[in-house]
C-alpha cells in the first residue's frame, strides 16, 4: 500500500464554527490585524501553532483520569520520571508548566550581562529569555538555511566553523552553553543531522563548553535523520533519540509539541550543582519539584505522549501529511521553504508579494489575507516576530546579524486535522496566490516592548 494513513481513528470531536468573509473582515479589524488577538471561535482552521494544540489519545485521556494530584511525591510524577529517563537517558528530570519556563530557569542561572549564547536559530521565547537576562542571543545557521529553494536535507544544521569563530572572537568564558534547536523552528522546521550534532559536541568538548538541546521536536528530527541521513535508515527512532540526547549536557523541552500534550515542559540536566540551583528556582516560580506547576494528570499525559510520539507509524503519518500540503502548494506555484519541515509549511512571503516592502511586513499581510480568504489562522515569522524597535539598535539585518526571511508559518497541530481540512487550506492559499497583487502592507500602530508579535496592533497601508 502506498497511501500512508493515520494510525488511529477519531474518538472525540470538537465542532468548528463557520464564518463568512464579511464576518472575518470585522474580526480582523477588531483584532488590529493581529491573528494572535482573534478569538479561537472566529477561526475555521487554526494553524497558528502546533504547540499545545494536539489531540490526545484515549490512553492519554485515561492518564488524565488517573492523575495523582498529591502536592508532593505523586505517583504520576514517578511514572513520568521513569518514562523520560528511559527515553532520554537523562537522570535528572524537572517538570515545568511549559517550555518557556524551562528556558527562563536555565537562562536566569547561566545567562546575564556580557554572556553570549549561540544556537542554530533561537526561537522567539528562547531569544526573549536570553535577552531578558542581559545576555546576547546569536544565530549560527548554515548558509543554505537562508535560501528557501535549496534542497539541503539538514537545513537546520549549525554552522560549526562559525561557532568556532564565535568562540575565538568572544572567548569561551563568555559562552555559558551552546544550544541547538531540533528541529529548527524559526529556520523552517528543518532538521539537524546527527553528524552535525556530533560535530557541535566535539567543538564543545574542545573548549569545555556545555551543549544543550532545545528539543521540542526531537522525535520529528529523529525521524528525519532516519529517513535522510546516510547509515541511519536501519536504526529505530528510539535509538536515534537516545543518541541525540546522549550527546547533550542538558535540554529544554516543551511537551506541547512532541510530548503530544496540551500543557507541560521539562528541563533535563546532568550537572548536579546546576540541578540544585534549578530546583530552587523551579520551586519558587513554578511549583514543587515533583509537579513543576502542572496538575498530576498532565504528568500522566506527558508520560504517555512521549511514548506515543516515537512510534514510527505515527511519525510516518505526521511527516507525510505535512509533505502533502507542501507538495500541493509547490505544484500550485506558491513559493514555500523547501524542503517542507517536520511540523509546518513556511510560505516565502517576500517571494509571494514582492511589491510589499519589508517595513510593511509582507508576512503579516499574507497572514491577514489567508484569514480573509478562508478563516485560516497562520503566523508571521519574520520582521514582526524578530524585528526590534529601531531605537534599540538591534534591528535585524544590522551589523553582525543575518537578514531574516519573511515567512508565514502554517503549523500543523498533531492528529487534529484531516486531509480534507488540508485540501481546504491549500485552496485558500491558491486563492490568495491568485489575487496576491491585491494584498496590502501594514503599519504597526501599537508596539509592546517585548515579544511584540503577540499583542502588537496594525493598520493597513
Amino acid at each position, binding site marked *: 500500500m502506498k497511501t500512508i494513513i493515520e494510525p488511529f481513528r477519531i474518538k472525540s470531536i470538537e465542532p468548528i464554527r463557520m464564518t463568512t468573509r464579511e464576518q472575518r473582515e470585522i474580526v480582523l479589524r477588531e483584532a488590529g490585524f493581529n491573528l494572535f488577538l482573534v478569538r479561537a471561535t472566529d477561526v475555521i482552521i487554526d494553524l497558528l501553532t502546533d504547540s499545545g494544540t494536539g489531540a490526545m489519545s484515549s490512553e492519554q485521556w485515561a492518564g488524565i483520569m488517573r492523575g495523582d494530584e498529591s*502536592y*508532593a*511525591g505523586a*505517583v504520576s510524577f514517578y511514572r513520568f520520571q521513569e518514562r523520560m529517563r528511559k527515553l532520554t537517558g537523562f537522570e535528572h528530570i524537572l517538570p515545568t*508548566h511549559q517550555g518557556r*519556563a524551562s528556558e527562563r530557569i536555565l537562562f536566569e542561572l547561566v545567562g546575564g550581562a556580557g554572556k553570549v549564547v549561540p544556537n542554530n536559530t533561537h526561537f522567539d521565547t528562547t531569544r526573549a529569555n536570553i535577552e531578558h537576562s542581559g545576555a546576547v542571543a546569536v544565530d549560527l545557521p548554515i548558509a543554505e538555511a537562508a535560501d528557501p529553494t535549496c534542497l539541503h536535507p539538514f537545513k537546520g544544521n549549525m554552522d560549526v566553523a562559525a561557532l568556532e569563530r564565535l568562540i575565538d572572537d568572544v572567548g569561551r568564558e563568555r559562552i555559558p552553553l551552546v544550544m541547538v534547536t531540533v528541529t529548527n523552528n524559526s529556520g523552517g522546521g528543518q532538521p539537524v543531522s546527527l553528524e552535525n550534532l556530533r560535530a557541535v559536541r566535539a567543538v564543545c568538548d574542545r573548549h569545555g563548553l556545555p551543549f544543550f538541546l532545545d528539543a521540542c521536536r526531537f522525535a520529528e528530527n529523529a525521524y528525519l535523520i532516519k529517513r535522510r541521513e546516510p547509515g541511519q535508515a536501519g536504526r529505530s527512532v528510539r535509538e536515534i533519540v537516545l543518541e541525540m540526547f546522549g550527546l547533550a549536557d542538558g535540554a529544554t523541552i516543551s511537551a506541547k509539541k512532541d510530548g503530544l500534550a496540551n500543557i507541560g515542559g521539562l528541563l533535563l540536566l546532568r550537572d548536579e550543582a546546576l540541578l540544585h540551583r534549578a530546583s530552587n528556582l523551579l520551586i519558587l516560580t513554578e511549583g514543587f519539584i515533583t509537579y513543576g506547576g502542572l496538575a498530576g494528570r498532565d504528568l500522566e499525559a506527558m508520560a504517555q505522549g512521549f511514548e506515543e510520539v516515537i512510534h514510527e507509524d505515527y511519525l510516518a503519518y505526521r511527516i507525510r501529511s505535512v509533505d502533502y500540503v507542501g507538495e500541493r502548494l509547490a505544484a500550485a506555484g506558491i513559493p514555500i521553504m523547501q524542503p517542507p519541515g517536520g511540523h509546518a509549511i513556511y510560505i516565502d512571503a517576500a517571494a509571494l508579494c514582492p511589491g510589499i516592502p519589508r517595513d510593511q511586513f509582507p508576512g503579516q499581510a499574507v497572514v491577514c489575507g489567508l484569514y480573509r480568504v478562508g478563516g485560516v489562522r497562520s503566523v508571521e515569522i519574520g520582521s514582526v516576530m524578530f524585528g526590534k524597535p529601531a531605537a534599540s539598535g538591534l534591528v535585524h539585518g544590522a551589523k553582525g546579524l543575518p537578514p531574516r526571511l519573511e515567512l508565514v508559518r502554517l503549523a500543523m497541530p498533531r492528529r487534529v486535522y484531516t486531509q480534507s481540512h488540508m485540501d481546504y487550506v491549500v485552496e485558500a492559499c491558491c486563492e490568495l496566490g491568485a489575487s496576491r497583487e491585491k494584498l496590502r502592507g501594514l503599519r504597526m500602530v501599537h508596539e509592546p516592548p517585548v515579544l511584540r508579535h503577540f*499583542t502588537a496592533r496594525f493598520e493597513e497601508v
Partner: protein
Amino acid sequence: MLRRSWAEPFKIKVVEQLRMTTRAERERAIVEAGHNTFLLRSEDVYIDLLTDSGTSAMSDRQWAGMMLGDEAYAGSANFYHLESAVREFYGYKHVIPTHQGRGAEHILSRSCIKPGDFVPGNMYFTTTRVHQELAGGQFVDVIIDQAHDPGSDLAFKGNVDLDKLSRLIDRVGAARIPYLALHATVNMAGGQPISMANAREVSVLCRRHGIKVFLDATRAVENCYFIKTREPAYADKSLAEILRELCSYTDGCTMSGKKDCLVNIGGFLAVNDDDLADAARNMVVIYEGLHTYGGLAGRDMEAMAIGIHESVKYEHMHARIGQVQYLGEIIEREGVPIVRPIGGHGIFLNALEFLPNIPRDQFPAQALAAALYVDSGVRAMERGAVSAGRDPETGKNKFPPLELVRLTIPRRVYTQAHMDVTAESVVALYQQRAGIVGLKFTYEPRHLRFFQARFAPVEGDKVLRSQALP
C-alpha cells in the same frame, strides 16, 4: 450545643484507591524522605493532609468542562469564560491567567516592587515573601498581635493592625510602599479570617496615602463564610455579595485557583489599573504564556471558571468549613493543643505546647509531622521555624512565634471516617508524645528550605520511639 450537620451537598462519582501501609514500611519511608513529609511518595501516604492546594476533587461539571477545553494558543473560548467568571464574582476589570498562584505573585512583585521598597502584609507567606525579597522589597508584618497567640479566641485574628500600618507609613513614607498584601484568610496564622470592617479601614487608610491594596484571594471565599457567620451585619448577605464587597476594597488580587476555585492547577492575577494590566500582560507572555492562556491548558481555565461558580455556594462552604471544625473539635476535646479558633482550611497543632521538651532548634513541628506519619500514615506539614528560614542578614534561624503542624483538609476529598482516623492518630500521638525525638538538618537548601530539606533525629535513628524513654 448540638450543631446542625454539615453533610456534603454532593455524592461521590469517582474514587481513587488508597494503599495501606504497615508501621515498619512507614518507618523506612520517613527515613528515605529525610524526615520531611514533602519528600514522601504519595503512594506511601494514607490520608494526605499536606496541603489543600490543588488536591481538591473536581465536580462532574468541572470534568465536563475539561472535555470542553479549547486548546487554541490565542483567544481560547475558555479564557473568555474565566474572565467573565472573575469579573462577575471578584469584580476586577483585567484578568490575566497564570499557571498557578505563585506565577501571579511573581508578576505582581516584579511589576510593582522597586529595590528598597517595603511591602506590609497581614503575616508572611513563604513563596509570597521570597518573591517580594527577590524583587528588592522587604516584607513588614502588620497583623494584629493576637494572631501570634495560638490561645487567643478572637473572631478575626487575621486582621491588619492599623496602628502598625500607620507607624510604618510614618517611618518609611508612603512612596516606598508600593502596596499592602492583604491575605484572606491568613494561612500562616492558622487560616484565620479578616473582618469586612478591617478590610474597609485598611482600604481607607491606604487610599489616603496612595498605597495600593492587593488581596491574596486564595481562600477569600472561605474568609467570606467567616464574615457571614461572625460579622452580624453580613448574616443575611450571600457569599457572592460579601466577596464582591471585600474585593471592592482592593485594587486587584493574586489567586491560586488550587484552593477556593476547586481546581488542580491554575491561578490568575486580576487588577483594575490599565497600565499595570498592560505591564503584567507583557510579563506574563515571557514567564507563563500568552495572556489568553497564561501557561494553562484551555480545559484548566474552563474548570476554574466553573469552580468559581461552585465555590460561592453557601452549602458548599458550609460543608467545607464544617468538616474542618468537626476534626478540630474532636482533637481539641481530647486536650491536644491547637490554634484557636479553628480556621477555614485546616487544623494547626501547636507544636511548642505539644512537645515542650524539644528545643526550638530541634524543630518540634517538623518532628511532630514526621512522627504523625510514622504513627498512622497521615501526612501533615510543618509551618514553623523550618518554613520561616533564615534571616537574610544575620544568617540565623528565624523562630516565628508560631511553631505549628498543619493538617490541611483537601476540598470534597475525604469523608467523616477519614477525619475520625486522623483525630485518633493525633490523640494517640499526644498520649505518647514523650517518644518523639527532635531533628537536625542533614541538607538545607538556600531558598524555601522546607520543601527539600533533609533531617535526622538528634539521637538514635527513630523520630517516634515505640516506648518513651524513662
